[in-house]
């Protein structure tokens, strides 16, 4: 964990008609940190991700990624700067085989610039990435149609899609949700591996137990407002955080 601030979010606000989804959210993210974003359903977490990755424009506020204000940029531009995201409702490219899904990010300007045209056969690069992510046990899996993969693999595919971009920050939108216990126990080492390799993560999660194993800072949201921020253990002791969760979503 270093002191280089990668992401500086200031006063983001967004309303949809009468609903205030995000109210004045600010935080800083340093390189190497794993920031967990938690809060009951409807707290505005996914809206936050959508704003930071360019899919929604906020009403007010700015977000500086390495000094550049990314508010107003299109999602592909933001991705090319190094900020990748997964989707909560997964979006594999259904009709294509799994490894072909990675062709898309491998053709992005970011990768093309980084590789300088020396990437070689993209197919094998894609398969290599998939093996890293854990598709290696079943050698035929990378060739299966993406739409036919089981849930755990699809989640990994989402992550693979991010990794293929060689990002600096990955925004994970509920990567642990919907998985069985065994699937989760194989996902955690993966996340830990990213962290060890120096990746900066923002993780939106409901599964607090798993999240706290990897996060070193946590931001709690409720009704669009940041109600707390700090190391996980401290934050969970606070009364307002506990109140936000009581009666709401129970950690599974």
């Amino acid at each position, binding site marked *: 964990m270093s002191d280089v601030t990668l992401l500086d979010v200031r006063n983001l606000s967004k309303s949809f008609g009468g609903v205030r989804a995000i109210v004045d959210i600010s935080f800083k993210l340093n390189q190497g940190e794993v920031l967990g974003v938690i809060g009951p359903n409807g707290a505005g977490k996914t809206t936050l991700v959508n704003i930071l990755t*360019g*899919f929604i424009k906020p009403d007010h506020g700015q977000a500086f990624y390495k000094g550049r204000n990314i508010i107003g940029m*299109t*999602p592909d531009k933001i991705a090319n700067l190094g900020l990748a995201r997964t989707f909560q409702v997964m979006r594999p490219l259904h009709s294509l085989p799994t490894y072909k899904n990675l062709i898309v990010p491998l053709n992005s300007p970011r990768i093309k610039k980084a590789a300088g045209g020396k990437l070689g056969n993209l197919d094998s690069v894609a398969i290599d990435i998939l093996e890293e992510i854990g598709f290696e046990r079943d050698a035929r899996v990378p060739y299966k149609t993406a739409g036919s993969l089981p849930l755990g693999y699809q989640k990994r595919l989402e992550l693979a899609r991010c990794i293929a971009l060689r990002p600096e920050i990955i925004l994970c939108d509920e990567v642990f949700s919907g998985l069985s216990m065994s699937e989760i126990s194989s996902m955690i080492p993966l996340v830990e591996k990213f962290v060890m390799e120096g990746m900066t993560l923002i993780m939106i999660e409901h599964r607090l137990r798993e999240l706290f194993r990897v996060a070193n800072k946590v931001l709690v949201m409720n009704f669009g407002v940041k109600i707390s921020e700090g190391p996980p253990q401290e934050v969970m002791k606070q009364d307002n955080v506990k109140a936000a969760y009581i009666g709401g979503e129970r950690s599974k």
Partner: protein
Amino acid sequence: MESVIVYGAINSITFALTAIGFSLVYGVSRVPNFAHGAIYVLVGFITWSLVNDLNLNYGLSIIISLAIASLIGLGIYQFVLIRLRGMPTSEIIASFAVSLIILEGLRLQGVGGFKGFIGPNYVLKPFFDGKIEISGVFVDYQRLIVVGAGVALAAILWLFTHYTKMGLSLRAIAQDEQAALMLGINSDRAGMTAMAIGSALAGLAAVIILPLGNITAEAGYHVLIYALAVCIIGGLGSWAGTILASFLVGFAMKFSTFMFGAVWESVVLIGTIILVLLIRPSGLLGKQKELEERV
């Protein structure tokens, strides 16, 4: 110059009349009723036939043909659109095909003795003959009826969608279909209603506007194009936008005719559309980002 203003206003309301039915259906069921223009023309011809071939009372003919229009709209929804919900490519193509079948069918000639509706003879009588003078410009009564009807219709529709159960459910679906479904609103039934109303509106526009000229099948395409242009420019999800756009386009076209000649009308139209698309793709007053990509 005054004539430009007066006729511009009339033109605008004419557009609004034709566009409202289309905008209603698309807003509710997300399916564009390509056959809108076709139904418009069809109603004109049916009314004509009822009046001239069957010698029915004019008013009665109108009511009958409006009813027929609704039925056709319903039929289209029930037999074609329902099967294709959720497959946008197919929906577009299918409603397109229906529209063409109707419009081109009306132009058929000499097939099995069917004479086809071509020629300048197809004229609907205006409701009242005569003109009146407004600030130095002569305006037929019929045109005034157009304006009156337009305004009345807008008011009625507003009341309908804000105060009746059916109207409110149509608005609900237009805003968020899934939420509406969860609240027990039957979207298929609403879709059918919307189609029926939309078709009737198209027919109504037809009987009011067609007496100003003669009925041609070509008009079907023009109506569709104008309705679309107005919806695109005005932005969806906003009926105020549709009306605003009607005025914008109505005046722009009359103005250009005044300055440059009638042939430029459609050029102005396409120019406006493209301009709006470039600057504000969701339309002038588009509240929802309907027209833009989801991003």
